[in-house]
């Protein structure tokens, strides 16, 4: 099923491509010989770049594990030994963290379920039916990706205000859903296109109805697609800051990013250990999920874009 692609996706968030390590260009013999001399240098540069890029992530975890007494010294501590979990336990004792976690989890759950359900239905229509307005729908999906969220939030705020949906789960879920569902359609459409219609037709020849064939043949093959699009909908909602800032005006309805913001600015001298522990707790599930989907995506993102 890894043949499914979502080529040329015009999406904002973490659109994935997974060039597997094996996809590297196989070098002709002559080139390989010449290249060998410079290779150690290039390897060293690559490792250096990797370290530079990963350093802030490492620094977050490191700071979260260094005891407070060691943290605010004029020489930074580069390794978290001795290790202390005081920052983590401090965050976990914070009532507001738990309420923000609940809020984020509920909104994410609502958005994931609705986005995947709605997106799946629409993807089936686009992929398996020919109907009038199909082209317009695809164009709509592309256009929506281009719409700058920052250019809309004023009227989105006014709209939710009118409907008394500010600081509510339905309000935030609605806006997040609108933002991610076009991408879900796009992604799932690629996965459904990847399952040959002939498989369904074979089942219909064997006596299945059209719907039955779809559910018995195609749906079981769509597992990876459904998982992937769920993960993206989750990431999109879990990471959302701008919309949450606009919509969740009451502080006791904060989501995790809003909680982190207030947590780091509520005192004049920031408790960086605690803030980094909170950041780590928010980021770890996302990084884990992201790495898990990455291996699933294959290198379909730009498949065919070069060869035409």
């Amino acid at each position: 099923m890894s043949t499914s692609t979502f080529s040329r996706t015009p999406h904002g968030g973490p659109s994935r491509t997974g060039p597997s390590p094996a996809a590297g260009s196989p070098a002709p013999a002559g080139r390989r010989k010449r290249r060998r001399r410079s290779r150690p240098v290039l390897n060293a540069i690559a490792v250096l770049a990797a370290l530079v890029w990963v350093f802030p992530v490492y620094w977050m975890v490191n700071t979260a594990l260094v005891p407070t007494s060691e943290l605010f010294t004029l020489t930074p501590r580069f390794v978290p030994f001795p290790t202390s979990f005081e920052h983590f336990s401090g965050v976990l004792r914070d009532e507001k963290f738990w309420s923000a976690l609940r809020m984020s989890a509920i909104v994410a759950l609502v958005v994931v379920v609705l986005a995947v359900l709605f997106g799946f239905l629409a993807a089936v229509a686009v992929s398996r039916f020919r109907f009038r307005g199909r082209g317009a729908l695809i164009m709509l999906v592309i256009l929506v990706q281009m719409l700058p969220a920052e250019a809309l939030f004023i009227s989105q705020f006014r709209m939710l205000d009118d409907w008394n949906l500010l600081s509510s789960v339905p309000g935030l879920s609605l806006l997040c859903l609108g933002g991610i569902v076009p991408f879900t359609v796009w992604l799932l459409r690629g996965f459904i296109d990847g399952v040959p219609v002939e498989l369904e037709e074979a089942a219909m020849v064997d006596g299945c109805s059209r719907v039955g064939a779809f559910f018995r043949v195609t749906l079981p093959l769509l597992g990876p697609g459904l998982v992937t699009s769920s993960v993206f909908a989750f990431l999109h909602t879990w990471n959302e800051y701008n919309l949450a800032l606009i919509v969740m005006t009451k502080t006791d309805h904060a989501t995790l990013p809003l909680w982190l913001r207030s947590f780091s600015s509520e005192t004049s001298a920031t408790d960086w250990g605690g803030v980094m522990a909170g950041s780590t707790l928010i980021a770890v599930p996302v990084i884990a999920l992201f790495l898990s989907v990455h291996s699933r995506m294959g290198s379909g993102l730009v498949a065919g874009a070069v060869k035409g």
Partner: protein
Amino acid sequence: MTTDPGLTPAVPAARRRHRRTQLTPYLLVAPVFVAVIVALGYPLVRQIVMSFQEFGLRQQFGQAPEWVGLDNYRTVLSDPAMLRVLLRSIVFCLVCVVLTMVAGTALAVLMTVVSRWARLALQVALLFVWAMPVMVTVTVWQWLFDSRYGVVNWLLSHLGFTGMEGHAWTADPMGLFTVAALIVVWMSVPLVAFMSYAGLSQVPAEVMEAASLDGASAWRRFRSVMLPLALPVIMIVGLLQIVWDLRVFTQIYVLQQNGGSTDDTNLLGTAIYRLGIGQGDYGMASALATVVLILTLLLTWKYISTLVNQQKEAAAR
């Protein structure tokens, strides 16, 4: 009426069956359509309407909004402060995009030439960065650039820049934009690197081999064969970066909160936010937002039309 009366009953039945099969796709599409219309379409229309109205604090307390035609646009586009914001955003965007594209494609090229283990190390590092939530990223960078205990100031002062000890980065506009640009570049590079790498590694091995047999040097092969073939992908990523960087919000908004004057550091995103949510001047904010929208569409028009044409071709097939 030349129609054979015996045939007429059959026609409505066929049409009915036809209509039923035609209804299914529309029903399947309906939920997505409704969600997008309610969450994005309606606010978009409303925003355009609001941009032609005087819609301030008084209107929030029930007074009917007054139609003012293009006044909001005229005010926004003739306000020197707004023009500075516009200019600043464009410069900031270009700097970020150029840095991101250079670093991203450089890393992509690096991935094609290094050993397998080094490539894997680089890819894992980039994936970690890519997955980080925006808010967490900004917070971590604030800590890196903390004036007193931040590791950046420590490093700089140990490298001999003695003036950097205790330097408050976000206090002046230049420092704030530097930190914001570093954050934007740092978090955008993984996407660019991975997509460019995917583009580069799609160049067929035979083509490279042919160039090699014709005596092209490694640099020549890269410049004249690999790069042109991967260019479409790189261009698309670059265009997306322009669109995204033009409307950076979170980075600036957060950094502004422990820094100096917001007037000197606003970009389009934060300017709209402060006009609308902050000052309650929805009419003006909507006009500015619409300007941003038009700017985005102008920038991406060619890309969108290419995509739409591809879709049409695919549909026709």
